[in-house]
């Protein structure tokens, strides 16, 4: 559509810009009056929290990059210099380091929210799949970021993870050499990981933009999993959800600050304060906590290629989740069997994380295999079958009915516009 936009803004400068480039109208539509289901619980904070975490990571990362040196001879010392001699360098680094953990905590809860309330179901399949792409990009970014301080875990973690690709027949070894830029993890590897670690966050930003754009086409899901039927079911995003998200952001920052200021190395591995040494293998090579469940799946399979495929499969299965779940009912509140199974999946993933932190010996092997089996059983067998067999509870007629307890007063603020999208 060609032609000037008819702006409703009064301020002449805003109006001048908005007529030519209607960004103000867009913001108003998407974050101001955007009709949002009125019954969100606090689980719906976590998308906004992930956005905040991402911005904090990018800002602190840019300042770290000003002082970090991606060279095997200097990387470790340059990080220590940031900690000791750069003004508030310790603060920036600890915020970035723990920010990765906070980002993953928030995103994992966000994913749980989507699973529990069926946010991946039609028409939100693509929205969900974009989310899985973001998760994959986050994992790659976090892995490469962990290599940069060039401590023992950086070096050996990079060696183990890149070596996974050698499991592929014929091309495996060549892929690994290509990833390394040489015949072992060395300076070229560190150089390219730094470059990619700086690049990928901006790719994440782009995919997050698509994720949010898709969200604003379908509208948000809600704890009842039924679509809003009219203005009585929704609230304008601002001020209702801006203020509710703000409460969540404050609590998020308290937890984050507690980590950064009082236990900055709690989630880290002490071995990463030992400079990388290709001649000495640490007693145990473990990834960061947020990658432990996948590591457990990898090590639960006795065959290397099988383990690698299962590990990648554990994420890839999420892409087809919308088609694996055969139930038309979204929210677990109305799916008694699914509810038990999905909560068991949460426990299962936590158990996998615990297994990943331990040597694959004795009982840990058995537990790891059982937990891996349940993970895939849940997605590949239970979801399709339970969707067909389960008798869901009766869905409420509309969102406003259970929330208002049967016809309370409408909000005094401007009622949201009907679901028309830009």
């Amino acid at each position, binding site marked *: 559509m060609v032609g000037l936009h008819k702006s409703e803004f009064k301020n002449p400068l805003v109006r001048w810009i908005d007529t030519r480039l209607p960004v103000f109208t867009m913001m108003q539509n998407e974050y101001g009056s955007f009709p949002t289901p009125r019954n969100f619980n606090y689980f719906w904070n976590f998308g906004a929290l992930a956005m905040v975490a991402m911005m904090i990571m990018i800002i602190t990362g840019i300042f770290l990059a000003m002082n970090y040196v991606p060279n095997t001879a200097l990387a470790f010392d340059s990080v220590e210099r940031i900690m000791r001699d750069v003004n508030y360098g310790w603060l920036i680094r600890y915020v970035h380091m723990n920010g990765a953990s906070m980002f993953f905590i928030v995103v994992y809860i966000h994913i*749980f929210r989507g699973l529990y309330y069926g946010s991946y179901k039609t028409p939100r399949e693509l929205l969900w799949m974009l989310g899985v792409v973001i998760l994959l990009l986050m994992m790659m970014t976090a892995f490469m970021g962990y290599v940069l301080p060039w401590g023992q875990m950086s070096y050996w973690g990079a060696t183990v993870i890149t070596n996974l690709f050698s499991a592929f027949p014929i091309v495996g070894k060549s892929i690994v050499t290509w990833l390394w830029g040489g015949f072992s993890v060395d300076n070229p590897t560190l150089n390219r990981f730094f470059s990619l670690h700086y690049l990928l966050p901006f790719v994440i930003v782009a995919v997050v933009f698509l994720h949010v754009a898709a969200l604003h086409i379908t509208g948000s899901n809600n704890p009842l999993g039924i679509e809003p039927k009219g203005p009585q079911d929704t609230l304008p995003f601002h001020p209702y959800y801006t203020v509710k998200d703000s409460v969540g952001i404050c609590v998020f920052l308290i937890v984050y600050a507690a980590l950064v*200021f009082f236990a900055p190395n*709690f989630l880290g*591995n002490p071995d990463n304060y030992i400079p990388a040494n290709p001649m000495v293998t640490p007693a145990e090579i473990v990834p960061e906590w947020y990658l432990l469940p996948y590591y457990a799946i990898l090590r639960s399979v006795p065959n290397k290629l099988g383990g690698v495929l299962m590990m990648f499969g554990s994420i890839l299965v999420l892409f087809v989740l919308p088609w694996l779940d055969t139930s038309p009912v979204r929210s677990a509140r109305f799916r008694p069997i699914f509810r038990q199974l999905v909560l068991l999946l949460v426990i299962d993933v936590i158990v996998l994380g615990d297994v990943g932190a331990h040597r694959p010996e004795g009982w840990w092997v058995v537990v790891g295999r059982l937990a891996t089996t349940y993970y895939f059983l849940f997605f590949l067998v239970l979801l399709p079958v339970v969707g067909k067999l389960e008798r869901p509870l009766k869905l409420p007629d509309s969102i406003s009915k259970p929330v208002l307890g049967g016809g309370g007063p409408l909000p005094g603020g401007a009622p949201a516009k009907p679901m028309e999208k830009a």
Partner: protein
Amino acid sequence: MRRIPLARLFIGAALGGLLAAAPARAADDAKLPKVEWSFAGPFGTYDLASAQRGFLIYQQVCSNCHSMNQLYYRNLEGIGLSEEQIKAVAASVQVPGGVDDNGQPIQRPGRPADHFRAPFPNDQAARAANGGALPPDQSVLELAREGGADYLYALMVGYADPPADMKMQPGMMYNKYFPGHQIAMPQPLQDGSVQYTDGTKPTLEQEAKDVVTFLAWAAEPELVERKQMGVKIILFLLLLTGLTYAVKRKLWSDVH
């Protein structure tokens, strides 16, 4: 209300998982003795007198074998040394001073802007002088070991005669707390290893506590500033959370 139990269950499970996933020391390792550290807890600060005594031990004992490459003499301001004292400490060692007019390497007295002098020019020299074992750099040693300060303290006081059934490698010492119990470092501290100038009695436990306080400071010189800033920031955030929640309640009062 079904939401609250679910949220609690989830948060509880997540925290439990995090704690469980935090790597644990191997089960066969002896339990570390508990030490009251001045720098522990949210309001902890370094006991500077202890850190200074620890620095004395570092100078007289540790630095004979261990480097501390990340530190500069100027950093000693952080444990309360005056500018004059720092200059004197730095000047007491000879450091590489570049080359003279004939291109020959020269030594000069240290300055506050110099790195702590390393005892050996390279790792090979360090190994050669220590029976093949490399004394680790001590700059961030306190962060680089599971158990942190408690572990380093335990290591200092953990030397003993090996159990009768244990076969020791030649040149190795028995230590209750070292992984595998065979350590190449001879017992570095005994009762009276150093003479303290402030009248403190130099028992093994006292020396261990002092040197570990110094090592903790060396690894995390920002700790005091960090914790003090953290207290203020958490208090501010609690206030902000309260205010934000009040605003939220007020705004939503016409919806519920």
